[in-house]
């Protein structure tokens, strides 16, 4: 794979991750916490009414997880494609090993 193909593959994969993670972001905030909140509130586990819980707690924790997941996915991608920082780290480790 030449440099140009590699760069294009990197960007394509990045956009894929972005669409999926932004869909999760949209679902957690706008859909679960506002649009379908009444329906979700009918499900109750202990004191947790799901809709209300999402609106005031759950969605925030999902936001945090989305960002860490994206950071992890991108580092993994960079290692695989030997590109940028993730790639540098992999190279350094290989050098150290050899």
């Amino acid at each position: 794979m030449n440099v140009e193909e590699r760069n294009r593959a990197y960007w394509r994969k990045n956009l894929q991750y972005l669409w999926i993670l932004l869909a999760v972001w949209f679902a957690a905030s706008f859909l679960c916490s506002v649009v379908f909140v009444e329906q979700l509130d009918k499900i109750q586990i202990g004191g947790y009414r799901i809709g209300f819980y999402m609106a005031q707690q759950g969605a925030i924790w999902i936001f945090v997880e989305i960002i860490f997941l994206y950071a992890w996915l991108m580092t993994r991608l960079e290692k695989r494609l030997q590109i940028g920082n993730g790639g540098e780290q992999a190279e350094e480790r290989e050098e150290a090993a050899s």
Partner: protein
Amino acid sequence: MNVQAWTFVMVALSFALYIGVAIWSKARSTGDFYVAGSNVHPVVNGMATAADWMSAASFISMAGMIAALGRDGSVYLLGWTGGYVLLALLLAPYLRKFGKYTVPDFVGDRYYSQLARVAAVVCAIFVSFTYVAGQMRGVGIVFSRFLNVNVSVGVLIGMGIVFFYAVLGGMKGITYTQVAQYCVLIFAYLVPAIFISLMMTGNPIPQMGMVGKGADGSYLLERLDGLSEALGFHRYTGDHMSMINVLCIMGALMIGTAGLPHVIIRFYTVPKASAARISAGYALLFIAVLYTTAPAVAIFARTNLLETVRYDENGEQRDLKYEDAPEWFLNWEKTELIKFNDKNGDGAVQYRGEFSETPNELEVSNDIMVLANPEIAQMRYNVPNWVVGLVAAGGLAAALSTAAGLLLVISTAVAHDLLKGWAKPDMSEKKELLAARVAAGAAVCVAGYFGMNPPGFVAEVVALAFGLAASSFFPAIVMGIFSKRMNKQGAVSGMIAGIGFTAAYIVFYKYIRPDLDEAKIWLWGISPEGIGVVGMCINFAVSVVVCKLTPPPPEDVQRMVDEIRLP
């Protein structure tokens, strides 16, 4: 020592700490001053971003606003956290890769236009001054309420502290003081919350206590719903505002957050793009600690308030007799945060909502939910006085850290974008650094002036700040990164259309005809606070159409975009 003395000690100790940190981290170059030399560890930057982001309003007023709105309080909770997802996924890594110091730098270079750069500078300065006036006011109010110091004197002391570490240390000084400020403010917020949670539910973790059972064995939320309805308030876990309006305000706050210059600029301080991604995660994690505690505090404080006015010791329903009112009630009445007006003259406090036929006799300020917490907790537990004394230091930390971040944006915008980038490009680094310090100093004075003589419209202007950030910066930056074809003509006309529409809508309902500011007359039922979302859509639409009709950007700009996209 009593609470008052401890408050003095805690405030003095925290100020000494900030000054010490500032001296230790003096800025030596423009790189230090603008972006802390770009070698801040991602976790440290995350913590500094959290302190930068959480303002006096987050610390003092947010729990009360949520308590008043009930479930729809999620507008603020999610609106002010969800923007970090957009920031981490769509903006921060690319802007860091771009590698210059400011947002106007990016807008000016990407759209190869000095006009775009200057427009971005003006927006950044306007948004930042709006915000900073509120922070300085917050400093003054905390001083006057807890230390019995005149508001103006309080603002002056606050100005002195910020002046010292912002002018001396620049971004480097601000970053490390913000870390200290985060620790102070989160400790001051959590400890009283933990005690209140123990008192109401027996669970020391507020986030779990809020969905737990109270002393009488019923779920706290169900009890609160029942109490709210009995007194004629809307059901706490039910809706309150129209759905379209909730969606729009939440969206405008999220997108506005991602477009605010003082937040974006923090991500220039980390070493590389991958560090910017992970740093946004840490920032949101540190923010989430406070933002998930706030709704719990809101529920505890609201339940406690309603039970105090509605139930006697034996659990019988009655209206609280004024002579039986607890001590915290009387204390806060003195500061006028609680106002009791005995309309029917029966000596009892009838606290009623909008659906009740009995007139309401009690007005409760939003701020009291956080400020009175430690005192309420002290009635039941032996909370040490020094913990209560920390609340003032926490409020000051929240206000000062945000103010410093904003002042830096203003000084950078003036020294770097206006002077160096536009008026005098041949300025030496030493002169630029001096200009940045002078600008920071001047900005502190202007902010202090507004803190002492607040314009009556601060609250409305904050809506404008978010609306403008959402309808101008955010689309321009996102298209600059994700569309290689986007050109100068498209971006500039989009920004003008977006800002023009948003500003006109807000100014019309807030200044020209405030009498018309009600749901029936709003466009599609969207309030001025949420209109930034529509402005953003207009911006995107106009940009795309104009871009299609005009030639693509020059080769070197397209190469720059390719460059930014790679890590």
